[in-house]
C-alpha cells in the first residue's frame, strides 16, 4: 500500500500541557525534530496486530493515531450469511479471551427476539461460566499488562491459574478457548459429575493466589510508579467516548450492566448483595489513571469469585436447554442486548425478517469503542507510557477489528 496520507497529530505542540508526573520538567525543555515511529502491527506490546503511528519528540509523544483492521475477519458479514445457530462459533472468535461472554451476549439477543424462557439451571451455568471466563480474561489482561511494563514472571503465574480454568471449561464443553457452550435457549450440556466441586476447589486456590498477584504486581512499587498518573481519563472524557466496563469504573463512574440493567440471574445476585462493583478512588495518583484501571480489573476477579460461589451455592438440578429446533426461524424484529463483558458493554444488535438467516448481526465490541480514547490519551506521554496506556485499555484485537 503506497497511499500515504499527511499525518495530523492530535495536538501540534506540547506546550501548555499540564505535567503529569512532576518529574519530567527537564524532558519538556529538550526539543528535537519530531519523529514518526510505527508501533506495530508486529510489536510485542500492541496485544496482537494493532498499529499505532506515534509522532515523537525524542521520548515525548506529541501525537498518536491508532490504525486498525489488521485482523478484520468480516464477522458481521458472516452474521448475515450463515444461519442463526451457525453463527455461534464465530462469536467465540472475536473476543477470544472471553468467549463465554460472547456466546452469552449473542444467545441473549436471539432469545430476546424469540421471547423464550431459559431453564434456571442453564442460567446458573451460564452465569457461572461467564464469571469464570471473566476471571480468565482479567488474568490475561493483568498478566500481559505486567508483561508490557516489564514484569515477565507474574504473567506466567497468571497463566498457571488460567490453565486450570481452561481445563475446567474443557471438561464442561470440550474446548480450551472457543467454547460455543452457551447456546440459544440454554447451554450445550449439563456439567459433568464432580465439576462443580472442582470449580469450588479452583475458587479456594484462586483466592490465595490472587493475593499473591496483587502484592507481586498491582502493589509493586515500580508498577505503581509506571502506571499511576499516566493516561488519565476524566469522567467527561469517559462519557464522551462512550467507554464502558473497567475503563469507566477506573474513572469512578458507578456503572455495571450486571447491576444496573440486570439480565439472567444478576437480579437475584444483586438482591442477595453477593458482589460489589469495585470503583477506583485514585489511590495511587490521579483518578482515572492506568493503575486505577488495572486495580479495578484485579478487584473484579475477586467479585467474580463471589458470584461463582453464589451460583455454586444455589444451583439445583434441572434441564439445561429448552426445546430448540435445529434450524431456527426467528420472528421478525430487531433487538439490542448489551451485557457486561470483561472489557465493557458487549452489544449484539440483531435484525430478523423471519427467516433462517439474520438480516443484520452487529457486534458492538467494547475494545473497539474503548480504544478510540487512545488518540486523546497519548499526546504528552513518554514512549514507555504509550505501552502502559495501550495495555490499560485491555483490548483484544479480534474484537476491535471483528
Amino acid at each position, binding site marked *: 500500500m503506497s497511499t500515504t496520507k499527511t499525518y495530523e497529530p492530535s495536538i501540534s505542540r506540547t506546550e501548555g500541557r499540564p505535567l503529569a*508526573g512532576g*518529574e*519530567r520538567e*527537564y*524532558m519538556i525543555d529538550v526539543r528535537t525534530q519530531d*519523529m514518526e*515511529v510505527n508501533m506495530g502491527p508486529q*510489536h*510485542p*506490546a500492541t496485544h496482537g496486530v494493532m498499529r499505532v503511528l506515534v509522532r515523537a519528540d*525524542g*521520548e515525548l509523544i506529541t501525537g498518536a493515531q491508532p490504525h486498525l483492521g489488521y485482523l478484520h475477519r468480516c464477522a458481521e458479514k458472516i452474521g448475515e450469511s450463515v444461519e442463526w445457530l451457525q453463527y455461534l462459533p464465530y462469536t467465540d472468535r472475536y473476543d477470544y479471551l472471553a468467549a463465554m461472554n460472547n456466546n452469552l451476549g449473542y444467545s441473549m439477543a436471539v432469545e430476546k427476539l424469540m421471547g423464550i424462557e431459559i431453564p434456571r439451571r442453564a442460567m446458573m451455568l451460564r452465569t457461572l461460566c461467564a464469571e469464570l471466563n471473566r476471571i480468565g480474561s482479567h488474568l490475561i489482561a493483568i498478566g500481559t499488562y*505486567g*508483561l*508490557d*511494563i*516489564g*514484569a*515477565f*514472571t507474574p504473567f*506466567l*503465574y497468571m497463566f*498457571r491459574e488460567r490453565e486450570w480454568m481452561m481445563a475446567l471449561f474443557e471438561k464442561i464443553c470440550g474446548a480450551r478457548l472457543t467454547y460455543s457452550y452457551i447456546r440459544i435457549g440454554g447451554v450445550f450440556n449439563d456439567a459433568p459429575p464432580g465439576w462443580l466441586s472442582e470449580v469450588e476447589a479452583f475458587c479456594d486456590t484462586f483466592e490465595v493466589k490472587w493475593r499473591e498477584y496483587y502484592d507481586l*504486581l498491582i502493589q*509493586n512499587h*515500580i*508498577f505503581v*510508579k*509506571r502506571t499511576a498518573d499516566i493516561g488519565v481519563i476524566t469522567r467527561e472524557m469517559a462519557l464522551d467516548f462512550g467507554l464502558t466496563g473497567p475503563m469507566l469504573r477506573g474513572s469512578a463512574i458507578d456503572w455495571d450492566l450486571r447491576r444496573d440493567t440486570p439480565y439472567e440471574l444478576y437480579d437475584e445476585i444483586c438482591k442477595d448483595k453477593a458482589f460489589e462493583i469495585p470503583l477506583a478512588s485514585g489511590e495511587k495518583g490521579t483518578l482515572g489513571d492506568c493503575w486505577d484501571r488495572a486495580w479495578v480489573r484485579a478487584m473484579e476477579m475477586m467479585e467474580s469469585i463471589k458470584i461463582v460461589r453464589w451460583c455454586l451455592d444455589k444451583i439445583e438440578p434441572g434441564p439445561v436447554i429448552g426445546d430448540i429446533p435445529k434450524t431456527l426461524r426467528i420472528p421478525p424484529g430487531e433487538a439490542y442486548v448489551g451485557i457486561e463483558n470483561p472489557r465493557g458493554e458487549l452489544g449484539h444488535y440483531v435484525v430478523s425478517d423471519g427467516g433462517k438467516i439474520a438480516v443484520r448481526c452487529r457486534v458492538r465490541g467494547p475494545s473497539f469503542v474503548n480504544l478510540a480514547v487512545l488518540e486523546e490519551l497519548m499526546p504528552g506521554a*513518554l*514512549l*514507555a*507510557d504509550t*505501552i502502559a496506556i495501550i495495555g490499560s485499555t485491555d483490548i483484544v484485537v479480534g474484537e476491535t477489528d471483528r
Partner: protein
Amino acid sequence: MLTFDPAIGFSSAVLAVQSAESGLKDGFGTNAIQDFLVGVKPEYVPAWAVPLTAIGIAIGIVLAIVSVLAMFSTWLERKVSGHIQCRFGPMRVGWHGWLQPLADGVKLLLKEDMIPLGADRTLYVIAPALVLASLLGAMAAFPLTETFYFANFGLGIFMILALTSTTTIGVVMAGWSSNSKWSLYGAMREAAQVVAYEIPLGISLLVPIMVAGSFNLIEVSQGQGGGYGILNWNIWPWVNPFMLPAFVLFFVAILAETKRAPFDLPEAESELVAGFMTEYSGIRWSFFFMEEYAAMFLYCVVGSFFFFGGFESPVTSLAESVGGTNSLLHQLGAASTIVLKGFAGVFLMMWLRWTLPRVRIDQVMTMGYKYLTPLALVCVLGAGLWEAFIAPHLWWRS
C-alpha cells in the same frame, strides 16, 4: 557466512596493548604464564618472544573465559527464569539442557549474515566488535588468583571501569548505524543511562577503596584477609558502617550499567522491540549478548572484590592453612571462591530480572542524578570521616 569479523582482531589488539603495558610496568615478572614460559624456554628462543607468547596465550584464555562465561550464563538465565516461573527451562538438549548454549551458538554462527539496506555498513560491522572488545579488554584486569592474572594494574579498577564504559560507544554506533528508529531509541537510552550511572558507580566504589587504600584488586582482596576469611570483609558494618549503603548504590548502578532489569531500557523488549540490537542477527547479535553476560559477571566480580572479600573466604583460608600460601590448593580455593561469588551476584541479578517490572527513562535519570549520586557522595564523606577519626581507635581494624 564466516566472513572476517574484526571483533577478535580488535579485541586482541586491545588486550595486547594492555598486557604489554602491564608487563612493562611490572618488569615482565609477575605474570604466572610468563613465569612458566621463562622456565620452559629453550636456549635458541630469543628473550623478546616470551612476553609476546604470554600475551598470545593470555588473549586466548580471556577469550575462552568470556565465551564460556557467556554460554554458561545464558544457560543459567534460562534455567533460573524457568524455575522462577514454575517451568523447567531447557531440558531436552543435553542433560537438563546444558548443551543449549552450544546449540544456540553454532546456530547463530551459521545464520545468514545480514546487513540492512539502509545501514551504515562500516559502523554496523564495527559496533558489535567494539562492544565485545572493550569488555574483553576489561576482563584482562580480572585476576583469577593472587598470582595468576593477565594484567595487574596499580589502578586496576579504573582500568575496568574505563574499558567497560566504552561499550556505550559501540552501542550508540550500533543504534545509529542500524537505520532503525527502535535501535536509535535504544542507543540514546543506553548513552543517557550509562553516563548517569557511571558517577554513582565510581563514587560508591571509593568507599572500599578508601578502606583498602588501594585501587588494585588483589591488594583490596588481601586487605580483607584474616578473620577466618569472612569477618574482615568490607561489607560488615564493624569494618565501616557506610559500606553497606555504598554496596547497595553500587549494585543498583551495575544493574543500570549492564542493562539488566529493572533498568533494561536500552533493549526494553515490550517497548523497543529489541532496542539497539533490533537489526542485528546471527553472530553479531550474539556479541552483544556475550557482552551483556560477561559484563554482569565482571561487575559482580568487582563487587565481590571490593565488598565481599575477594579471594577471601573460609574455604580459601582453610586451603591456605592446609596447603600453604600460594600453593596450588590455595590458588584453586581462591579461584573458585571468586568465580562463585561472581556467579552469586549474577544469580541475584537474574532473580531481580525475572521479578521486577521495568522503570521509565525519566525515573532512571531521576534516580541516577537526584538520589544515587548525592547518596554516594554522602557515603564517601561518612566513610572518610569514619576512616579518619574512628577506625584508628578500633582494635580489630589495626
